[in-house]
């Protein structure tokens, strides 16, 4: 049985997702010791050092470019900008992955430990992280970081998803796609905001339905996260130093992290530290 990591990388004109995917891939290869493949589009691929891409990635898989109009406000510390959010192709991972057991990660998820290696042989064929774990503690964690809406179901974090390729997980990803295609209807049903398409919500609802409308607490580890108002300040020999704003928009405090997987939502700050990270 083959194990491997898959990362989506589609540049959106503002964020260099291709470079982010290279960083995430190099770290994943180092710490998990498995091959990493990228799913990208021709335009993104034309913007990169193709030799380096070919060296780092096990397979480069092409899809047509995303056609979504999805947008979001992305912060880089105190500055923010409305950017395209090209996240609609995730359900295609089942068809495109070259591996029997796949770990799908966001390209801003920096794997700095081998913790996820514990799950390759896990008997559960679909595992998603079931909890957002803010680096500063619980003060910044809101209800909608834990549930899809005020009255909705548990929110899973599609930042890390591990699955075995079989008919049952195919059903899951088909259902995610169906929810994406009928997002407004599901928004009415599960009472979540449809202003912005979120994979976390589609994955959560698909999981809820396929678990038989009950909570099944078999998850990947919580996603240790820094928000985009935080900044990755510097990287030194595997030590990541962050500037965090514990009450959001208030004074910054420092924190340093080593040997822990961390979701760094401030993508530009990852790119500023690209050389030191890898």
């Amino acid at each position, binding site marked *: 049985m083959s194990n491997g990591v898959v990362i989506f990388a589609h540049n959106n004109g503002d964020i260099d997702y291709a470079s982010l995917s290279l960083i995430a891939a190099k770290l994943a290869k180092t710490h998990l010791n498995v091959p990493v493949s990228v799913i990208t589009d021709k335009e993104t691929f034309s913007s990169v050092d193709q030799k380096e891409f070919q060296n780092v990635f096990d397979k480069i898989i092409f899809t047509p470019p995303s056609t979504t109009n999805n947008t979001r406000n992305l912060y880089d510390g105190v500055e923010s900008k409305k950017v395209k959010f090209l996240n609609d192709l995730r359900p295609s991972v089942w068809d495109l992955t070259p591996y029997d057991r796949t770990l799908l990660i966001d390209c801003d998820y920096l794997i700095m430990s081998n*913790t996820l290696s514990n799950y390759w042989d896990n008997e559960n064929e679909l595992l998603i992280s079931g909890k957002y*774990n803010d680096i*500063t503690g619980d003060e910044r964690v809101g209800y909608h970081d834990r549930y899809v809406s005020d009255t909705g179901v548990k929110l899973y974090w599609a930042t890390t998803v591990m699955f075995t390729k079989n008919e049952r997980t195919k059903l899951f990803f088909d259902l995610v796609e169906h929810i994406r295609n009928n997002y407004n209807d599901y928004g009415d049903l599960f009472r979540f905001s449809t202003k912005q398409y979120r994979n976390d919500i589609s994955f959560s609802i698909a999981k809820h339905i396929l678990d038989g409308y009950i909570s099944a607490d078999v998850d990947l580890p919580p996603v240790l996260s820094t928000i985009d108002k935080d900044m990755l300040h510097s990287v030194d020999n595997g030590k990541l130093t962050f500037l965090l704003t514990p009450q959001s928009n208030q*004074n910054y405090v*420092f924190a340093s992290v080593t040997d822990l997987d961390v979701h760094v939502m401030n993508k530009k700050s990852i790119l500023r530290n690209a050389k030191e990270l890898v």
Partner: protein
Amino acid sequence: MDDVLKKALDFSNYRKTFAIQHKILKEKADSRLTYGFNGGIFKIDRTLITFVQMLEDKGRISGVVLLDVNDTPIMIADLLSFKEDIFDRYFNTTYEYYEEYEKMKKNRNVESLIK
């Protein structure tokens, strides 16, 4: 008064940084104490260690079924080898946690805390 207030704010900043660094250390220890075995996931803690030691003391060292963190029954064919793995990992991890925490306690300002 300004000086008093500055000192209070500095100390508050130090305490916040200390709390976050402590949380990060605990996360690191938790992550290392997660142990995948034979398709199951175990959290290596005092309860697991004590139970495994009790099984060994009772002579039940092969073909033992343990419930993992999700209450899934997992077959442990060789309990002694399993015990050795979890003991090693537990003592290495907690010792490292202790060392890093002691180092952190000695640092009385933000700058040295994150060094």
